[in-house]
């Protein structure tokens, strides 16, 4: 039976079919749905971890216990999980272990475009790269076989176009795997210097054996066609090659670390021009060049930036492009914005008004950087706002501390903000931190986290209180405000900025998209009372328009939150909660 499945859904199906029992992940676009889908199978224990490092360590523990285990993360999530995974390569596995890392070429929903293949090479972990949903499911099974045969965690690399595309998957039954007995084996599992010295030898031997396997595995496949050009490629790029040049010869790599040398050399000998097609960095190309294999085109043709596509391949290869016509007038951009009713809007309106330096973080509230709020000064990575605020205020002194804040979401705070707060107390900072608690992990599509009191399966669990965590970390000034009340929010921020101690303000209101959040009827504006002062436009709400020198409200998207009304000095708003 075949079914249309999202790549992420197919990875989850592959986990179930391969007998996986344990999944732990932190959400991250484009990897999130794997774990949500895995949780739907009764045979798999699945959970949200507070961050990728804990998820990876938990998967290592489950593997030691003898289970086939798994964790998924986005490319930058691997940065967080890298510490355990680099050494997991040394201690190996008991039950098979697979780590999926989802890259985001083109940065549809990411802060950088790093190429995870470097990690596979650096951590000395084998890496498989599927092209579509069918391969997502099948390669998970292959990855577990390699993991147990070669005693190593195995990486599975996807990208946005694999993770978030749907294609047909052939379904199989589950191959139930009993727990492998755990035996105390310190000479393998204890990564202490004397032991790791010996394990490193094993790791290098294993990679050599995998290099041999790479020459013969059907994961690496030659499709001979016209021999004028031969493409070496993998993943989604294989599909672009087939679309643009269906008759050309192709060597498709399914195992991208380690790569075969002889197989590629033999392929190169059969074609007139050898072209390497890969998104982001020239990893395959560098491997070929290092092994003295002739490359007639690669990064010089396609560059290191963004996603590739069939037209980019055609253009780079000098082939004809499809004809098209363009709209010859400027089309205004449509950047993403905070939703109508978003609780972050009230806070960012206040921050914008106070003209503070805002050290931001990763989440929906990164959108506070956009016009007209323009309220964010810097965004780096998960949890970085607090550390950045610390360094910034230490160097610029008390005056700067009175004019700057860190802004971080509830899930991001749990992920890696806590250690930043510990540092503020320990190192005598007077910085002010705003924790935007919207009771959910928002940007990735509403996942539970340790503060929400619910597990991945929506079972009740202990709700970690952010205020308790901050107090326990040594912050004495901790308070809670509702960003819907902009006057109270402003007053609280002013007070904490003036304080001679580190402070945390928990800015608390649930995400407007949560099902239990009730909305008011839409507001309207009395055109006779509206003076056209544009004060209500300052909040950057997509439901407010301005035509003929008057503001008006789009009732199809207004949720009646009333923030705009708080901005109005002329009592021009009607409807909403009063209706």
């Amino acid at each position, binding site marked *: 039976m075949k079914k249309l499945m999202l790549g992420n859904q197919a990875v989850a199906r592959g986990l179930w079919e391969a007998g996986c029992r344990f999944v732990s992940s932190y959400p991250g676009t484009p990897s999130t749905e794997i774990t949500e889908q895995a949780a739907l199978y009764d045979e798999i224990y699945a959970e949200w971890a507070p961050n990728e490092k804990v998820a990876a360590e938990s998967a290592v523990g489950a593997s030691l216990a003898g289970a086939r285990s798994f964790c998924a993360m986005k490319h930058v999530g691997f940065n967080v999980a890298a510490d355990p995974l680099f050494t997991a390569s040394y201690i190996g596995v008991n039950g098979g272990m697979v780590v999926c890392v989802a890259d985001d070429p083109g940065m549809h*929903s990411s802060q950088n475009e790093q190429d995870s293949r470097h990690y596979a090479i650096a951590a000395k972990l084998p890496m498989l790269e599927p092209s579509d949903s069918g391969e997502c499911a099948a390669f998970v099974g292959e990855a577990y076989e390699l993991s147990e045969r070669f005693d190593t965690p195995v990486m599975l690399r996807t990208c946005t176009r694999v993770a978030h595309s749907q294609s047909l998957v052939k379904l199989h039954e589950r191959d139930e795997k009993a727990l492998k007995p755990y035996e105390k084996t310190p000479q393998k599992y204890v990564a202490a210097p004397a032991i790791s010295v010996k394990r490193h030898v094993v790791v290098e031997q294993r990679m050599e054996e995998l290099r041999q396997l790479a020459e013969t595995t059907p994961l690496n496949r030659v499709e001979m066609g016209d021999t004028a050009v031969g493409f070496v490629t993998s993943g989604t790029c294989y599909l672009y090659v087939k679309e643009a040049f269906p008759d050309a010869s192709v060597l498709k790599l399914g195992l991208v670390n380690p790569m075969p040398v002889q197989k590629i050399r033999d392929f190169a000998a059969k074609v007139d021009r050898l072209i390497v097609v890969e998104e982001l960095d020239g990893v395959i190309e560098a491997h070929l060049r290092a092994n003295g294999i002739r490359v007639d085109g690669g990064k010089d043709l396609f560059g290191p930036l963004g996603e590739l596509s069939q037209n980019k391949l055609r253009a780079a290869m000098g082939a004809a492009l499809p004809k098209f016509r363009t709209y010859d007038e400027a089309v205004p951009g449509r950047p993403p914005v905070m939703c109508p009713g978003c609780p972050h809007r009230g806070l960012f309106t206040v921050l914008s008004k106070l003209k503070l330096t805002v050290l931001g973080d990763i989440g929906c509230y990164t959108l506070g950087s956009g016009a007209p709020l323009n309220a964010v000064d810097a965004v780096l990575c998960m949890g970085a706002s607090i550390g950045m605020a610390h360094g910034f205020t230490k160097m610029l002194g008390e005056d700067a501390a009175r004019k700057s804040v860190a802004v971080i979401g509830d899930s991001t705070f749990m992920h890696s903000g806590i250690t930043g707060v510990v540092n503020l107390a320990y190192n005598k900072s007077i910085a002010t931190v705003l924790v935007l608690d919207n009771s959910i992990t928002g940007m990735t599509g509403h996942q539970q986290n340790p503060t929400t009191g619910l597990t991945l399966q929506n079972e009740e669990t202990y709700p970690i209180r952010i205020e308790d965590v901050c107090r326990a970390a040594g912050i004495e000034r901790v308070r809670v405000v509702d960003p819907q009340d902009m006057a109270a929010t402003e007053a609280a921020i002013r007070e904490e900025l003036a304080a001679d101690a580190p402070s945390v303000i928990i800015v608390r209101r649930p995400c407007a998209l949560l099902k239990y959040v009730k909305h008011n009827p839409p507001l309207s504006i009395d055109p006779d009372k509206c003076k056209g002062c544009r004060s209500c436009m300052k909040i950057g709400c997509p439901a407010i328009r301005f035509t003929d020198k008057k503001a008006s409200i789009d009732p199809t998207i207004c949720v009646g939150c009333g923030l705009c009304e708080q901005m109005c000095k002329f009592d021009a708003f009607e409807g909403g909660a009063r209706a």
Partner: protein
Amino acid sequence: MKTTSIMIVGVGGQGTLLASKLLGNVLLGAGYDVKLSEVHGMSQRGGSVVTYVKYGDKVYSPIVDQGEADYILSFEILESARWISYLKEGGHLITNTQKTWPMPVITGAAAYPENIVEKLSALADVTAVDALALAEQAGSAKAVNVVLIGVLSRRMDIPEAAWLKAIEETVPAKFLELNKKAFELGRNAG
């Protein structure tokens, strides 16, 4: 059969994903190889969103490039202007006439272009419908997506029964009648 490419474009939150799911179910039921590609996350938040739907004997690339779309199904008229270069020569644009202002227009940094339908009609074969009005007539502004699928269905070589079956399989039971009505209104428009 060669691959047919459809692009569904709109504004995050307009229900484009349900439209692509429905279309995928119809095409799968018709026995084609099908690929759908969508983008989640940051770009969903009221931004410009694009979904690709491709079908045929064997589909390779999951994305549609400039000059490749046989059909563009657009939920918002400015988005039609943005994506028209993806239509192939002889392709067909089906567009909602609804306008949703993007933030640069709201802030006054840019103007919303005028007479877009007329200008697009000079470039391509265009069917423009007020899908919001038809959706409201069917009972809910949220049914814009199914109205537009109805308009598209008239132009594709797939029996009406297959569309209705896919609607039954895709939408929740309590909204079934509303969506069937929205589909019929769309099918009979344009």
